[in-house]
């Protein structure tokens, strides 16, 4: 988000305003009140005596609350205002705003305070593409509130705006279709205030609440959900470190992860991580799985909800519009108008080929950490369906690899791997690889998924035959992969096999995910680790998505040269898995150094410029922030540095901490062992 914007959010409801607290949305920006992928307010401005307000300061008190200190614009710096205005906003199923006007002069002030409101009811997708609405807008005034509405057939969305009296000295409110006007007298050195309630309403949809969730001085997020922010922070392990900024990054990550919690309709009292603000405040298969994985040593319950909800929404049929197949795990779920009328396929959309193996990876990892065998039994059917998807649908041509090519040619995703922009899969000469594409990391995830599912089948499902078959298949896949994807003259794995089974020969960060998955033969790991830390891939802050020198490389290209924090966190885990302790520490240190420049909040991606040239990490222009898996990256880096692995009923700690961090302790790590502590000292000299 831009530094000029202030956001407050709660799940899929969020308000983005300017620094005055005002919303004046153009058709293509994300200012507004959004609820379930629809913009319920596109205009929300306050003026006093016909003058708009100037900001003095803005506080993001919590992720769900902000406060704006303002004065009426005087047009000159030489005239002091005798009035102050304070707006305090908290988000719920809409938002609640306390508006206070203080009169600092010795004379009474007779004021007209005008709040203008309007709603365009744009689908989040329309905001991006500036599309026209197909239905009709309406407004009415009833029961002392202004109702703004939108109707297309039986699709109805409304915004209800009302004012209730605070501690005022006089009041006269008039409501019309443009908003609310108060005519008030504020006594000398006195103040006037009111409360504004804005509710996003879907008529006919049962709501668990009758009013917005927050009211005056109610600092507790989601009272209907159980875990307050304070409790959330208190339950997480405590970090003790000689590096103060690391502590700040850690706290920021935990707070942002709390902010990004999404309470799905299928499990309304359980949270899973949504993908990011503002574009992706919804359930994403890949993002929710990988973020839950990153958060396992800290908040393991996110993984449980993610697994349950993704299992419930697992594909059951072949549906080309949604790129759905039986057993497939979804990519993205939306609830806006374009999704409702099937102008977009996100109901849900299944265009991701890595989510299904990653679902199995998370299921196993979750059990290894928590010992929660119940969910492994509960999801046995879904896990078996996922395994069948890999062989019967993921591998379309029977060559033993998962490949993808969208069936929805109009609104489906061309790339169904994590690098899902259209131009990410390129040869070394920069040319695009023909479809279908079998990217390398998906084969790694599949290998890992089969190895892990073999364990689950043996220990929990009582199916030895399946277990042995999966182990055989995994071993065979590893053998073939190390031959079919290996590029001997450059000594790394191809990014993908293309539609003609040619090796897509660009050097990319994907090879790091292969280490994480364990599919790499031991005798090839050295070469991979060398490439990852070489100047062409490693910028000094992190591993670039594509190496400098490749034909498609662009340091500010979304998936072809930028540095992605989550990518790096998994790479660090991969380096640890193969014993490259110093290299893992180097990646962790680079990323955590970068986090300091972003005030502890790593963005989705940042530019791939070399560190020695820019001295600070350069922001990527349109990066989403906070983004769930970037938020989770420091957490996974802590795991990588401390070498945390569940082994049987214990937590194994095997630190490999950069010498620049003298002391690193993580206390009270939850797991099947109860709570356990990890201590480490910085002894690793960086390469």
């Amino acid at each position, binding site marked *: 988000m831009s530094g000029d914007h202030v956001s407050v959010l709660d799940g899929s409801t969020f308000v983005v305003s300017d620094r005055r607290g005002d919303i004046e949305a153009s058709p293509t920006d*994300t200012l507004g009140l959004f609820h379930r992928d629809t913009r319920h307010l596109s205009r929300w401005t306050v003026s006093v005596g016909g003058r708009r307000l100037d900001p003095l300061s803005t506080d993001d008190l919590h992720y769900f609350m902000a406060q704006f200190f303002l004065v009426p614009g005087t047009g000159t710096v030489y005239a002091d205002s005798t009035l102050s205005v304070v707006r305090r906003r908290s988000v719920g199923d809409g938002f609640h705003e306390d508006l206070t006007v203080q009169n600092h002069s010795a004379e009474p002030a007779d004021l007209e305070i005008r709040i203008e409101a309007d709603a365009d009811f744009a689908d989040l997708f329309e905001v991006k593409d500036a599309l026209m609405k197909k239905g009709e807008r309406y407004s009415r005034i009833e029961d002392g509130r202004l109702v703004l509405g939108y109707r297309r057939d039986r699709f109805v969305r409304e915004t209800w705006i009302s004012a209730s009296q605070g501690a005022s000295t006089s009041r006269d409110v008039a409501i019309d279709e443009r908003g609310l006007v108060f005519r008030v007298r504020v006594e000398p050195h006195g103040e006037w205030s009111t409360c504004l309630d804005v509710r996003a309403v879907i008529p006919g949809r049962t709501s668990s609440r009758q009013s917005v969730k927050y009211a005056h001085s109610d600092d507790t997020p989601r009272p209907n959900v159980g875990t307050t922010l304070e409790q959330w922070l208190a339950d997480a392990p405590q970090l003790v470190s000689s590096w103060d900024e690391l502590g700040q990054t850690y706290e920021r990550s935990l707070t942002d992860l709390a902010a990004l919690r999404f309470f799905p309709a299928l499990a309304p009292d359980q949270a899973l991580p949504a993908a990011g603000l*503002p*574009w992706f405040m919804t359930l994403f298969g890949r993002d929710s799985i990988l973020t839950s994985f990153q958060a396992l040593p800290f908040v393991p319950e996110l993984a449980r909800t993610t697994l349950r909800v993704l299992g419930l929404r697992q594909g059951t049929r072949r549906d080309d519009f949604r790129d759905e197949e039986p057993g497939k795990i979804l990519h993205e779920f939306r609830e806006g108008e374009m999704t409702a009328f099937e102008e977009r396929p996100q109901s849900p959309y299944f265009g991701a080929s890595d989510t299904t193996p990653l679902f199995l990876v998370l299921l196993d990892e979750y059990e290894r950490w928590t010992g929660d065998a119940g969910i492994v039994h509960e999801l046995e059917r879904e896990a078996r369906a996922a395994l069948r998807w890999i062989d019967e649908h993921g591998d379309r041509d029977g060559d033993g690899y998962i490949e993808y090519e969208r069936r929805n040619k109009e609104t489906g995703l061309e790339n169904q791997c994590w690098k899902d922009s259209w131009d990410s899969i390129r040869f070394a000469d920069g040319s695009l690889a023909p479809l279908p594409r079998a990217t390398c990391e998906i084969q790694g995830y599949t290998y890992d998924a089969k190895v892990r599912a073999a364990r689950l089948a043996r220990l929990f499902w009582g199916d030895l035959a399946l277990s042995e078959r999966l182990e055989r298949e995994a071993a065979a896949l590893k053998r073939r992969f190390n031959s079919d994807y290996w590029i001997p003259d450059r000594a790394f794995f191809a990014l993908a096999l293309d539609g003609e089974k040619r090796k897509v020969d660009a050097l990319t960060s994907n090879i790091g995910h292969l280490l994480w998955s364990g599919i790499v033969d031991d005798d090839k790991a050295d070469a991979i680790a060398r490439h990852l830390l070489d100047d062409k891939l490693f910028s000094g802050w992190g591993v670039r998505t594509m190496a400098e020198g490749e034909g498609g490389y662009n340091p500010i290209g979304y998936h072809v040269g930028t540095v992605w924090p989550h990518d790096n966190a998994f790479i660090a885990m991969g380096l640890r898995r193969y014993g490259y302790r110093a290299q893992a520490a180097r990646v962790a240190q680079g990323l955590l150094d970068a986090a300091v420049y972003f005030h502890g909040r790593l963005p989705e991606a940042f530019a791939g410029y070399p560190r020695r040239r820019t001295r600070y990490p350069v922001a990527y222009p349109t990066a989403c922030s906070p983004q769930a898996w970037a938020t989770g990256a420091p957490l996974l880096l802590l795991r990588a540095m401390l070498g945390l692995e569940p082994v049987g009923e214990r937590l194994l700690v095997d630190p490999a901490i950069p010498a620049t961090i003298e002391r690193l302790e993580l206390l009270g790590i939850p797991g099947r062992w109860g709570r356990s502590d990890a201590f480490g000292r910085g002894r690793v000299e960086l390469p």
Partner: protein
Amino acid sequence: MKPKNARALFEQAAAGRHNPALEGIRGSYRFDVEGVSSFRVDVDNGDITVTEGAAGGDCIIQCDEQDLVRIAYGQQNLLTAVLQGRVRLEGDLVLAQRFHGILPGPGSNARREEEEKEEKKEEDQQEQAAENPDARPRRRVA
């Protein structure tokens, strides 16, 4: 034979009795079909019982007859029907998620698998389908 009305759909569902795709599921659905009647479908580990006019139900689905038939035949997706406001869902949404499978028609999982095998055959024959090079997906950037 495709039942074209709600009553026929539920009669066929009752005649089917057991659907392997519903094994592991226990719960009851109540369909309030506008202007027709209400039907309760109890599912017990794959066994289906249908009772007309019974009250209760863990998951209540309210819609008109035409939408019900369209949904049962896969011509209308249940979820987008809910998002459009054509179908109201109350109660256990987890059960609602398993909705495809309790009514006959290609909505049931078993039939979908069959149907899909057919489609796959067809697809294999048309593998070299022409592509539209201009159709590019939405990038995940603002």
